[in-house]
């Protein structure tokens, strides 16, 4: 009866939408599972072939958008079928379906021969329809949550996001399994028909068997479903505009769905905001290395202020003095004076209570400032300004400690640690800090006025080889401010002083300090006419001031460690201080270390008196050395001519790098006159010429060749 009935099984729109949705689901599955299993070789191939994860992700979101649109279309189409065309909604699950399921199982297992009475939507189709509908809703919902976590968590708890992520993945797996097992078996394997592809399949016997109710219904009631004109008019007038309006709103929603959140797409985690190159200042100094080296090791890169510093007087002043005053003293660099409290405050370098507006901090934290100081120094100054930048404000407990500082208990140790290597037995610059009395005598400290004490001025001026630590500076400062107490009885102090006298000769001219109660009387005025000798006077001066370099090292070829070698060095011409290179050098002040005025006068007086070794040997009694007469810088034509003819070129090739304008050791060998004035040549007497003596001794850093030395020796013999 039903043979060869031709009818439209799926409309064109049904067929197009099916295949679009099939493609979308396929793409969603591929792009989704590559993200779920990113390290799988297939996934990696897909990432590499289709532009990487971001493009795959964009494709996934795009397909999600299309499936959302498809769901809208499906709802509209179903509404059209149900309400306009009045076709029964066959996909709605009914109670009969459950019976049909059981019946189907029984039939399949051959328990009964009665097939379930299925309508147009068979059990399998209903199942696949609702599986996909349910799956689509879950996927779209969880997809929206994953795509817009910010807005979702503004309304729902944060845990919804990982829940959605889990559900999205599992639901996708379920949908794909359903499609593979169910759809593939029933519609591809079991009965490959083309109803979903071509328009007019023949109503085959198979359809009658699978859909007994639907087949009857289709055939018998085909006239009832013809749409009348009123319905069409209603459709065009009301239903379609309402549907389009709803679709438009929902499409806007879908667009929103994709583009709602962009923050996590466009933002980037802010990197660590720390300057990469921030050297310790003692490693990459911009100024002198010496002087700052030790200080900065006492102020390491530690955050946190030095707690013991509370006021200008109790530390800030010293910190600025030692760190800044090298450049920023009176009329210093940038016109900034950081030496005294008043100028610091007057020029707004420090605004009490407002550290962030104080120029001192804004400048040193600026990379353009020549030196960058430690965080600890910065924090210390910051805390001081924050607390109102007091000039004098020492907490009672610290004041008690500072007022109890004494030489005996505190300061001697500091001096011993930091000073006495040079300012001890060597008494550099006449300073001996080994005892309380010698320290007071040195003039380095001004009682009760630490900021006027030369010891601080010198340290702050920069260039001093040694430096105190911040704590040592503070203790020393407060000790002086509180009157530089000895912490000893007068006898003990005198004993201390006597001990250093015995330990080593401290200060030139300070030999016989017999009255220990009055050590101030140690000054020795060199009276005119008094004969000074090496043994009694000069040896001590040279030992304390010169022999560190001009001892066994014989820097510049000059050795002043004993009487004989001192005269051998050529730097002393007995009886003629004005020609002695030692005196010339000291007066020129080009030498790194200089003798005190008293010591220099003593040496001049000694040389004038013939540079005697002892009182037994007088100016005319130093024949062991055959001391020459003072060299007259007169023209000696023979030697001058020879100089011009070749001797001069030996000197310029071999000597003048050091003994040129540098005049190392006070010896200038650039010209004939300079050579003669240098005292290193004694015309007519090569053996008495210090130049020859030095070269032959081999002690000089650079040595002449035998030929050159012989030429000079012959030149000296000419004599005139």
């Amino acid at each position, binding site marked *: 009866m039903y043979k060869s009935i031709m009818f439209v099984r799926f409309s064109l729109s049904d067929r197009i939408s099916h295949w679009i949705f099939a493609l979308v689901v396929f793409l969603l599955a591929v792009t989704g599972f590559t993200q779920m299993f990113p390290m799988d070789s297939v996934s990696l191939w897909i990432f590499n072939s289709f532009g990487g994860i971001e493009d795959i992700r964009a494709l996934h979101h795009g397909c999600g958008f299309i499936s959302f649109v498809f769901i809208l279309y499906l709802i509209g189409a179903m509404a059209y079928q149900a309400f306009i065309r009045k076709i029964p909604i066959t996909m709605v699950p009914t109670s009969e379906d459950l019976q049909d399921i059981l019946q*189907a*199982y029984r039939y399949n297992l*051959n328990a009964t021969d009665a097939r379930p009475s299925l309508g147009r939507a068979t059990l399998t189709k209903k199942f696949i329809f609702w599986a996909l509908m349910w799956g689509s809703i879950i996927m779209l919902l969880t997809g929206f949550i994953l795509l817009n976590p*910010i807005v979702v*968590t503004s309304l729902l708890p944060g845990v919804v996001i*990982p829940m959605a992520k889990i559900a999205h993945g*599992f639901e996708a797996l379920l949908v794909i399994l359903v499609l593979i*097992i169910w759809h593939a078996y029933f519609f591809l394997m079991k009965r490959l028909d083309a109803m979903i592809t071509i328009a007019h399949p023949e109503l085959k016997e198979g359809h009658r068997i699978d859909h007994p109710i639907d087949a009857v219904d289709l055939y018998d009631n085909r006239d009832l479903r013809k749409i009348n004109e009123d319905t069409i008019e209603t459709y065009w007038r009301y239903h379609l505009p309402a549907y389009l309006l709803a679709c438009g709103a929902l499409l806007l929603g879908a667009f929103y769905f994709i583009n709602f959140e962009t923050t996590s797409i466009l933002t980037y985690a802010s990197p660590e905001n720390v300057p990469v190159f921030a050297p310790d200042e003692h490693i990459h100094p911009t100024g002198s290395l010496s002087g700052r080296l030790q200080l900065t090791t006492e102020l390491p890169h530690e955050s946190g202020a030095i707690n013991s510093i509370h006021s200008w007087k109790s530390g800030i002043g010293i910190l600025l003095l030692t760190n800044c005053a090298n450049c920023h003293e009176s009329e210093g660099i940038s016109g900034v004076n950081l030496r005294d409290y008043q100028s610091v405050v007057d020029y707004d370098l420090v605004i009490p209570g407002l550290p962030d507006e104080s120029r001192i901090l804004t400048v040193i934290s600026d990379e353009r400032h020549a030196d960058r100081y430690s965080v600890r120094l910065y924090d210390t100054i910051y805390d001081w300004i924050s607390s109102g930048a007091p000039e004098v404000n020492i907490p009672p407990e610290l004041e008690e400690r500072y007022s109890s500082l004494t030489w005996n208990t505190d300061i001697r140790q500091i001096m011993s640690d930091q000073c006495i290597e040079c300012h001890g037995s060597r008494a550099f610059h006449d300073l001996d800090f080994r005892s309380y009395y010698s320290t007071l005598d040195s003039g380095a400290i001004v009682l009760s006025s630490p900021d006027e004490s030369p010891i601080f001025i010198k340290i702050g001026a920069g260039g001093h080889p040694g430096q105190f630590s911040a704590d040592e500076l503070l203790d020393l400062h407060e000790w002086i401010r509180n009157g530089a107490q000895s912490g000893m009885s007068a006898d003990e102090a005198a004993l201390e002083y006597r001990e250093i006298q015995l330990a080593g000769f401290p200060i030139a001219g300070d030999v016989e300090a017999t009255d220990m109660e009055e050590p101030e009387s140690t000054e020795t005025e060199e009276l005119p006419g008094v004969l000074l000798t090496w043994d009694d006077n000069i040896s001590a001066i040279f030992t304390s001031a010169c022999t*560190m370099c001009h001892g066994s090292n014989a820097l510049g070829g000059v050795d002043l460690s004993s009487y004989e070698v001192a005269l051998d060095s050529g730097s002393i011409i007995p009886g003629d201080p004005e020609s002695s290179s030692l005196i010339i050098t000291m007066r020129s002040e080009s030498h790194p270390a200089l003798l005190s005025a008293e010591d220099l006068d003593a040496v001049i007086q000694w040389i004038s008196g013939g540079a005697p070794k002892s009182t037994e040997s007088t100016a005319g009694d130093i024949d062991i050395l055959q001391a020459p007469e003072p060299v007259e810088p007169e023209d000696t034509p023979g030697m001058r001519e020879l100089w011009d003819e070749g001797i001069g070129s030996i000197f310029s090739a071999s000597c003048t790098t050091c003994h040129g304008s540098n005049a190392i050791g006070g010896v200038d060998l650039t010209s004939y006159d300079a050579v003669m004035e240098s005292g290193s040549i004694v015309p007519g007497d090569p053996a008495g010429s210090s130049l020859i003596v030095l070269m032959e001794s081999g002690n000089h850093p650079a040595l002449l*060749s035998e030929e050159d030395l012989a030429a000079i020796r012959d030149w000296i013999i000419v004599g005139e």
Partner: protein
Amino acid sequence: MYTSVNRGTFLFHFIWFSLALIIVTYTSGFQPVLGEGFTDNEECYVCHSNTNLEMAFPSGEVISIFVDRDEYESSVHGEQGMACITCHAGTTEYPHQPRTELNYRDYSLDLYAICTRCHTEQIAEIRNNVHMVALAAGNPNAAVCTDCHGTHNILCVSEAITPMNRTCGTCHGEINELYELSVHGAALIGDGNPDVPSCTDCHGSHEIIGPSNYPFHLFSPQICGDCHSDRDLMESYGINPNVMDSYVSDFHGKTVIIFETVASDQETNKPVCIDCHGVHDMLSPEDSHSSVLKENLLVTCQKCHPDASANFPDSWLSHYNPGPDQIRPVFYVKVIYWILIPLLVGAMALYVVSDFVRQWLKLKGEMKDV
């Protein structure tokens, strides 16, 4: 230039020193280049043992050129008896050739090139490192050999007494300050703990690559993972050893490993370990200042998600896997699907099988009829 040392003595010293040099060369792989003139360090010590010896540059910088004999002789080069002139090849005569550098830094940059003569392997390693690139680009502050290893006091790395971060900190002072406050730095400096990473453990040493010229950021999780995936090491400190697995299973980590695998030349804005935990200043997650402490996490999330609200941080599972004891809502979703999927798929499979059986029986019957 001229010496009064007699030729026999000179020849003796020359042969002795040459033999020593050949031994050193063959045993260490070094290829020292000798100058002429001074061969004995004693000649150098005559002047350079003077603690006051200084050298001035036109820039006004004054440096000490005192050489501590003990320090040098206990250094790796001094122990092998290397001559001063091996490195100071231009100072074989007195007076020395005048230096032409304008400042101390230029002097250092000129002198470090001497290292390249012997340490060819190391030079190949540093050739493209971040410091050399910066130096080639004209940045004189870029570190060269001597800035890290020292000069006269060079020790074997195994004998070095200065913690690595302090060495790097001489130039990278502020970064080092952050590091020393971090959980790693505090353990290294405070406790001397050898398990924590110092600078070179993450950045490399000679082949050091800068975060700015390579996707260092992208691959940085692998650096962290080297230690933090070591189960024995982590459990000995009571640290969760699953941090890498949980990171990679989440959205951020998954994206990062995909980029590492298929697009290693590109950066992604997905966060890596250091974006949340901090770079050099990372603290223990229990520390009250930690960027990943629950109370501080919102601020951390807002670095990338500026509109994030207070609920948002809970979307991150803090490196934990959902289970019956923790993060239960997520666990329950899993359980639902663990039940639903086998049930539905099983029912479907059963139906398909039964249908297939029916069709097969039917076919068999028809065949029988025929």
